[in-house]
């Protein structure tokens, strides 16, 4: 009986449920004995020159060991972004701050409780400059964040001058709108943290909650001006990441620097305030969508123009539009489509990757456009989608934007989710409520999507991952992986794969990851890559290990390797036709270690797809939205462990829905963050979402032996536009055509008033 495809409970759980995970702040290690505590004084203004910093009062506070400013760290290399070499920045700014929350000074204390007292005493003299918060202001460039750059434009993608003025010439109907894909906070439950200790060998050991230890190692080394070999990253348990725990944030670099400076281990954990203003934000695109076609529902042309708010620094967020553009046309067959993007800097928190990282933005724009078009021609949005989705394909399909979709059946996904949702009955109920004049309106929203997972490092670089599998004489096994789980359950899933091949029980298999001395290479966990790359590598390593073991077994049994078969049930090699002539796999490790390291290479990225239906109620008197149902098809190929896959879908759907109607980061005109606590940032709670309804569909990829694509981000890609479309659909009979996200009560109410002409 194959274990693959079954609901195996997580082997990780007993520990997490009883003694709890060991996150970076929990780590107890002799190398960190006597560690000092690092704190950051942060800018309270969005944009200013630093006229002076006086740390003398802080230095006299109880327990303060040291205090540092940007001048003290002047030897560290300046960070030069690849996208724009003029928009350089220091790890700790000496001259200028560009967002509220940017670190301006370091204070180091003996005890954790002394830090907040001390940083209050750091006295900074700011020459306040005008903030740049608005997209239009940033583009206008009257106030520049980086003088050397001469502009607030960090980079462009595609060529605005190459846009086709005649793209929509043949369309009977054209509609265009500028919409907002608003800034949100990843807000994992574990905030950022770091601990560092320098050894006598001159190497630094750093405990950092990361999604990719090997990338973190490189980033930390680069920013400290040392070689990666001098950096040892250990990844403790990580309390969620969602794209925002890649690389090495400036604070982590400074913790390592302090430890070296003081010759003493150092540690840091940020508060939630710091997390909400200084961990990278997500999304933050302004999008102009133009869509046109025929009255019979055929879409003929689509244009997407993106302005990406990168925040104050050019980081991952600034380049994510390239992924948005890559997925411009989504799952549809649109004869003529084009897209461009511009990344700008503003005096706000830097923007990074957040669950979906550029792809949810593409789907959200396209799905809004499809609904706008449907409303314009008065056609059911499901029918418009069905009419325009790419027909099913078995040969990879290349889009004009350079994406090569591996396998897909988008119409089947749509039909499946409509059936699961009872779409016709929902439309009937909606009509009945409208006839009765109910003040609580019912809305049904759709989204069809395709997304890219498991990308390689660059164009035409096939993605890969390594795994080492070792069988021990006592019958246990250890797997080393280049992935970096932080809730995804790899310890269980990779054990399932090895168990399937080797016949060793799942609970006798241990997974190790995230320690760069143990696993020097790896791509980490993000972009929904882990199972397809990392899992495939585990499978491959297990199979290769059996081949090594076969040779040893043959020698032991004095038989021809070809005459042996491996009995998975007994985890033993036996001579074909003579089961008593057998040798257990584990015993073949007795004299010499039995392990294989392999690298799995995949031909390219894979493209999971799906369709979501969201059902909302809108109280038209107050604008309050209640999410009643979310029904989804998320097809990521073969499902290795349905328990884990469903969990990923649930989490993604919740985050996607949260963006549509609950969460937003808000700044005032001076660049002050107004949502910098969990009391103010409307973080989704259990009462805002229902239980979700997941339908099963598995269209395998041909790109790896398991037939798996990535599932981690799919839920968030589909749910956001489905919920947004549902809210607008609820109010379409009142003349509402669009509401920007989030559909907060006030925003919804204002849209209703505007449609009534009572703006």
């Amino acid at each position: 009986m194959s274990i693959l495809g079954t609901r195996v409970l997580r082997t990780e759980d007993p520990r997490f449920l009883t003694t709890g995970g060991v996150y970076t702040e929990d780590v107890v290690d002799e190398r960190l004995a006597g560690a000092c505590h690092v704190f950051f004084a942060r800018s309270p203004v969005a944009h200013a020159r630093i006229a002076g910093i006086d740390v003398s009062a802080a230095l006299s506070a109880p327990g303060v060991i040291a205090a540092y400013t940007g001048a003290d760290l002047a030897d560290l290399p300046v960070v030069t972004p690849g996208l724009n070499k003029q928009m350089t920045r220091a790890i700790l700014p000496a001259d200028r701050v560009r967002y509220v929350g940017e670190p301006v000074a370091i204070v180091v204390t003996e005890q954790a409780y002394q830090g907040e007292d001390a940083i209050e005493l750091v006295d900074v003299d700011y020459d306040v400059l005008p903030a740049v918060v608005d997209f239009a202001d940033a583009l206008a460039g009257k106030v520049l964040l980086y003088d050397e750059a001469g502009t607030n434009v960090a980079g462009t993608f595609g060529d605005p001058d190459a846009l086709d003025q005649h793209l929509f010439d043949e369309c009977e109907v054209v509609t265009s709108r500028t919409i907002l894909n608003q800034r949100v906070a990843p807000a994992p439950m574990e905030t950022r943290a770091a601990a560092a200790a320098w050894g006598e060998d001159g190497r630094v050991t750093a405990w950092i909650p990361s999604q990719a230890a090997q990338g973190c190692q490189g980033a930390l080394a680069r920013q400290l001006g040392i070689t990666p070999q001098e950096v040892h990253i250990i990844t403790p348990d990580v309390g969620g990441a969602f794209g925002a725990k890649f690389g090495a944030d400036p604070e982590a670099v400074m913790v390592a620097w302090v430890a070296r400076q003081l010759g003493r281990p150092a540690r840091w954990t940020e508060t939630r305030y710091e997390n909400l203003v200084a961990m990278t934000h997500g999304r933050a695109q302004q999008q102009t969508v133009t869509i046109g076609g025929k009255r019979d529902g055929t879409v003929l042309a689509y244009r997407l123009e993106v302005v990406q708010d990168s925040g104050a620094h050019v980081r991952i967020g600034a380049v994510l539009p390239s992924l948005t553009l890559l997925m411009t046309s989504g799952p549809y067959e649109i004869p003529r489509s084009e897209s461009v993007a511009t990344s700008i800097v503003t005096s706000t928190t830097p923007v990074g990757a957040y669950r979906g990282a550029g792809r949810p933005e593409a789907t959200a724009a396209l799905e809004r456009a499809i609904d706008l078009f449907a409303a314009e021609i008065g056609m059911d949005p499901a029918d418009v989608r069905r009419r325009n989705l790419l027909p099913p394909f078995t040969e990879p399909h290349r889009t004009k934007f350079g994406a090569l979709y591996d396998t897909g059946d988008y119409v089947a996904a749509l039909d499946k989710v409509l059936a699961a949702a009872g779409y016709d009955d929902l439309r009937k109920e909606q009509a009945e409520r409208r006839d009765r004049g109910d003040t609580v309106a019912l809305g049904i929203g759709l989204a069809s999507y395709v997304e890219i997972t498991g990308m390689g490092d660059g164009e035409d670089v096939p993605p890969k991952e390594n795994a080492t599998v070792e069988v021990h004489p006592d019958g246990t096994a250890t797997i080393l992986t280049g992935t970096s789980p932080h809730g995804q359950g790899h310890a269980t899933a990779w054990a399932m794969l090895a168990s399937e091949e080797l016949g060793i029980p799942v609970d006798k298999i241990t997974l190790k990851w995230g320690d760069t001395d143990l696993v020097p290479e790896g791509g980490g966990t993000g972009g929904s890559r882990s199972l397809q790359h990392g899992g495939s590598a585990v499978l491959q390593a297990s199979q290769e290990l059996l081949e090594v073991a076969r040779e040893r077994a043959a020698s032991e049994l004095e038989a021809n390797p070809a005459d042996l078969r491996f009995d998975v049930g007994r985890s033993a090699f036996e001579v074909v036709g003579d089961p008593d002539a057998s040798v257990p796999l584990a015993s073949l490790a007795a004299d010499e270690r039995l392990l294989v390291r392999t690298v799995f290479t995949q031909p390219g990225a894979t493209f999971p797809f799906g369709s979501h239906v969201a059902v909302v109620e809108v109280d038209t008197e107050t604008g309050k939205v209640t999410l009643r149902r979310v029904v989804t098809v998320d097809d990521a190929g073969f499902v290795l462990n349905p328990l884990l896959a469903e969990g990923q879908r649930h989490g993604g759907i919740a985050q996607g829905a949260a963006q549509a109607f609950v969460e937003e980061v808000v700044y005032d005109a001076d660049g002050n963050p107004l949502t910098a606590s969990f009391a103010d940032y409307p973080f989704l709670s259990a009462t805002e979402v229902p239980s979700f309804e997941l339908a099963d569909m598995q269209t395998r990829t041909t790109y790896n032996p398991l037939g798996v694509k990535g599932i981690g981000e799919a839920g968030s890609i589909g749910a956001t536009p489905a919920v947004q479309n549902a809210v607008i659909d609820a109010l379409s009979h009142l003349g509402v055509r669009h509401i920007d996200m989030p559909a907060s009560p006030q925003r919804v109410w204002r849209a209703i008033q505007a449609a009534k002409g009572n703006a």
Partner: protein
Amino acid sequence: MIPAPFDYVAAESATHALDLLDSYGEDAKLLAGGHSLLPMMKLRLAAPSVLIDIGRLAELTGIRAEGGELVIGAATPHAAVATSDLIRADAPLLAHSASQVGDPQIRHRGTIGGSLAHADPAADLPMALVALGGSVDLLGQAGTRNVPADDLFAGFFETSLDPGELIAAVRVPRSPGMAWGYQKFVRRANDWAIVGVAAIDGRIALANMGPTPLRARAAEQALAGGASPAEAAELAADGTEPGEDVHADRDYRRHLARVLTRRALEHRA
């Protein structure tokens, strides 16, 4: 996240607490459940140098009937108020209000007296007390004085307590079977009200429509004059100057006040 340093002393009785307040002066604050005060101190929006803990004084907790009133010890947690059979029978609006404060953990610690003393205009209990026409017993060195809810809230997070006074008990009229309504409009569970309305016996109280909980007097008068709930509710926001924040601007708040008042007058909770 961490409060500034302070000294702590556990009061042995209410009068001991008063003596301590006297001797420590302005820089001392009373601590009951701590779920209004400690969050402020953790954000360093408040930094008293001494905390006087009255949270475990038996004389300040408990729920009893006294003639036509229910008397609730100031240090009684919201959870106890919410689940009290006596309060649910005789003053269900109060029990419901207490059940809406924050979340279960907060309700296990936060107290009715603490919430009233904190005087957050967006909070549940101040609005409820005003709607019920309740009062508080204030204990000072000179003895006890009773202050009606309408006179308790002096300004934004400010009560009319004299320095050196503490809230000893809360009184509400017993009104078993009387219809009531309660509307707390939030964006997300666990939030303070964007706008709140409590209505009972011709009294209408509003939360987060001004620096203190307010009576919607124009609406009350219309009601008393025979107007229907819908008609009276149209006047709910009259005379108010609500604040603006990320959730709601002035116009939207006024609109909510009208809608929620109508619903409260229709006895919806």
